[in-house]
């Protein structure tokens, strides 16, 4: 494989590329779904290929192929150069990369139990037990238990001399119970919705989830939601459970701090950002207790690695510090615009794709509000919102609206009844400015979001978000006509 890297780099530079990098990826994935007591899906995927990225006269070209041989490496490299020459036809300033020094080395995801070494029977046992637990709830309509694992071997080389090898492992699982009647469909998920909880690590994480131990509870909650009162409308105090804080961070901090968005490079698709470059270091994003960082070194994170796909080493950098906007997610092309060196967040979803600025593990640092129970006890009146159900935010990342699977009214420091179809909406900096409590390290979880879409052609990336439950004041809840 290393020969192929050298061959492609030689072909690219020999054809006129001033810079070239080559990435070879072998990807392996497995997924299982048990639905309503039957194995609904069992699949194993393998894919391998390579990509060549070049700069010619300050313009980018990129080509990829599944054909892992010397002839293909030269052909694809020359194709990338031809594409770069076409890029010059539109004009514009030349691309200049930052001065990140080329690195060499090997990095592997730490884990205890290789998810691919666990037998299929054992994985199915866990899923069928979880399914049976959900089935114990009277009135449940649909049950689904899922499990996935992925392994990626990645080789990277550049014409600057970088030579890197990485072995990345991730796995995850989740359960969802759905109750349906004539008017309603209600879901409850565990540990979270949107594909369950996925970690950068081994099968020990799935064993720790205790899916069957939560199956009956979530199924009973889904059934109870059918007859729960509709979430009230109005301005109120909101506590978000940790996984909902994670998706709130994802949409309202992670994406707007992507420097390519702020520079307009995603304008035609995912949109831009209200966190414009002139606001760096001089914009109040949230309250004093809001601290958000991008940590590609976080244990267990889906956005944890040794180097990004430009060969920049994993780092932990602040994005919001004491409520002030202080940093961006950057790449080697974009970082010089703000007079910085890349902090290493340029990643491709597969060997087919061009690296883009992607979140690493963008996390809200824990606060001092203790446990979730402590925070509820400290809240006179409000609503606790748990487990994401829907999400939407404008193209500048200002106006957002989220729905959650369940709401619990809070009265005098105690939960006072379940409500269904809760939604809340706000404007990003006002919302984070209203954050007056964040639970402590004991309530903090490193969540994985495996389905983050961005770019054209669209790439689906795995990213991480550490979060603890947090409280927000004067939030508009119960949106729309029900």
């Amino acid at each position: 494989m290393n020969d192929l890297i050298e061959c492609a780099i030689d072909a690219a530079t020999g054809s006129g590329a001033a810079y070239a990098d080559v990435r070879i990826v072998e990807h392996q994935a497995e997924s299982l779904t048990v639905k309503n007591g039957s194995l609904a899906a069992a699949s194993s995927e393998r894919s391998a290929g390579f990509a060549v990225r070049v700069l010619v006269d300050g313009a980018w070209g990129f080509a990829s192929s599944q054909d892992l041989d010397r002839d293909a490496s030269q052909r694809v490299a020359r194709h990338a150069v031809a594409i770069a020459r076409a890029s010059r036809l539109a004009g514009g300033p030349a691309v200049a990369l930052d001065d990140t020094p080329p690195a060499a080395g090997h990095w592997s995801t730490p884990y205890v139990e290789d998810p691919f070494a666990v037998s299929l029977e054992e994985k199915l046992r866990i899923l069928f037990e979880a399914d049976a637990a959900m089935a114990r709830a009277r009135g449940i309509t649909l049950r689904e238990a899922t499990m996935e694992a992925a392994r990626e071997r990645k080789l990277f080389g550049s014409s600057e001399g970088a030579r890197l090898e990485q072995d990345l492992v991730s796995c995850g699982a989740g359960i969802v119970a759905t109750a349906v009647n004539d008017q309603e469909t209600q879901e409850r998920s565990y540990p979270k919705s949107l594909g369950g909880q996925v970690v950068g690590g081994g099968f020990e994480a799935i064993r720790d989830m205790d899916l069957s131990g939560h199956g009956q509870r979530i199924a009973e909650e889904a059934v109870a939601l059918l007859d729960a009162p509709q979430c009230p409308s109005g301005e109120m105090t909101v506590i978000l459970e940790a996984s909902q804080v994670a998706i709130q961070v994802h949409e309202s901090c992670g994406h707007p701090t992507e420097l390519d968005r702020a520079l307009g490079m995603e304008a035609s698709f995912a949109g831009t950002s209200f966190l414009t470059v002139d606001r760096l270091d001089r914009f109040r994003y949230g309250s004093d207790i809001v601290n958000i960082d991008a940590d590609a070194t976080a244990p267990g994170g889906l956005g944890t690695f040794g180097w990004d796909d430009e060969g920049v080493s994993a780092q932990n950098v602040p994005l919001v510090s004491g409520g002030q906007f202080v940093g961006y997610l950057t790449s080697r092309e974009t970082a010089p615009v703000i007079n910085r060196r890349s902090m290493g967040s340029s990643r491709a979803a597969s060997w087919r794709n061009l690296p883009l600025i992607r979140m690493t593990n963008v996390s809200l640092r824990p606060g001092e509000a203790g446990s979730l129970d402590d925070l509820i006890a400290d809240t006179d009146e409000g609503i606790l919102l748990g487990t994401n159900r829907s999400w939407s935010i404008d193209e500048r990342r200002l106006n957002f609206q989220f729905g959650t699977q369940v709401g619990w009214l809070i009265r005098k420091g105690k939960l006072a009844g379940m409500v269904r179809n809760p939604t809340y909406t706000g404007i990003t900096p006002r919302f984070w400015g209203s954050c007056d409590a964040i639970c402590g390290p004991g309530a903090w979880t490193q969540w994985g979001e495996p389905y983050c879409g961005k770019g054209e052609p669209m790439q689906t990336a795995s990213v991480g978000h550490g979060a603890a439950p947090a409280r927000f004041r004067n939030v508009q809840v119960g949106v729309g006509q029900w």
Partner: protein
Amino acid sequence: MVGRDVAAAALARLEPGYEGEASIIQRHAALTRFAGSRIHQNVAEEDATLRVRIRHNGRTGVAVTNRLSPAGLEEVVARAALIAAHAAAEADPPPLAEPPGESVDSDLGWIEATAAADPGARAAGARTVIDAGVACGLTASGAFSTEAQQRSVVNTGGLVASHRVTQAKLVTVMHGPAGETGYAQSISTDLSKIDAEAVGEEAAEWTARAADPTDLAPGEYPVVLGEYAVAEILEYLAFMAFSGLAIEEGRACVELGQPAFGSNVTIWDDGQDPAGVPTAIDFEGVTKQRVDLISQGLARQTAHDGATAHRAGVPRTGHGLPAPNTFGPLCWNLFMAAGDTPRSSLTQGVERGLLVTRFHYVNIVHPKKGILTGMTRDGTFLIENGAVAGPVRNLRFTQSIPDAFSRISAIAAESRLVGADYTGIVSRVPAVRIDGWNFTGATANEANV
């Protein structure tokens, strides 16, 4: 490499007594992306992915590879068989798709010039759009893509089917000096039908009209939805209303045989219609059937894959996704019937309402009630006394689509082909006027945040 031969070669490796299906997607795709009036990303990819589904004694396994050498085929079949050997048996698994009588070998929608498009052609299109913006003092962003794809499916029941198709798509968002934006898109199987100059002019015109937006209080307003906005709503109806699995599980926002929308609404799916971007077969090799989803407001038919059709006891309609599929069938060739109102007259009769060109980040709030939320984007305009009065800041909606589509008071006589951003669904739709649309919020004036 002939895809159906590779798929057949994989199935030839099955043990006696096994049944199976092999599908292969061969794809050459390229995309030239521009922003800030320069090409900043320019990519090409080639791949062929083989998917093998094996069943033995009611146990099913699926394995996928892009290693298509003899050794790769041996390996993927062995991997699928291993999964099947350990899988739990299904009591009543759906049968493999039956062969249609003779093999299907369709090139409906295949245009050689699109398949052969080079980076120079895409760059020239990008340059044309950029120039259209520059001429108006605007900055252009967008993407020009070309793709050639062949889908081939073979199964042990004798089915042999393949379809190859091409697609070219050009989109742009233009930005004005104060941040105002406008959008345009063109999509076709035929690269020569992509008029980059027209795309640039359309986006530039909307951008110019969107300058200096004012605030508008949220509330219920009559709306005129442009084709891009209508197409996005249909995209979500594909999930919420038109899926046989959603119907089967009681999650759908329509009920078969019951009125779903107003009697002036007719929607169907037709993968064989060259007025769209055809998909002649699905991922199970089934020839796509026209499905009359909504006929004069009535929920008449639904899309099926092998599994939902088997459980419902009805024929497949050719809407299966790649195995193993727990998502259910999907319509991705949607058509909405045009009306008789000239597009330019849709705003007439609206005393005070809104013209929405495009939505952004739409999502399902409540599937059974058909409630969506999302933002407007790239041009939202106040209508007063039947005419466009001026731009307003982007608004958020939270709206039941069955309610809204029961209040469509005019449908444009013209329709337009629109490609979805995220799902690949392509719809041919008209613009519509709806007598009430619930706007529940507005974005902020950035100077005040």
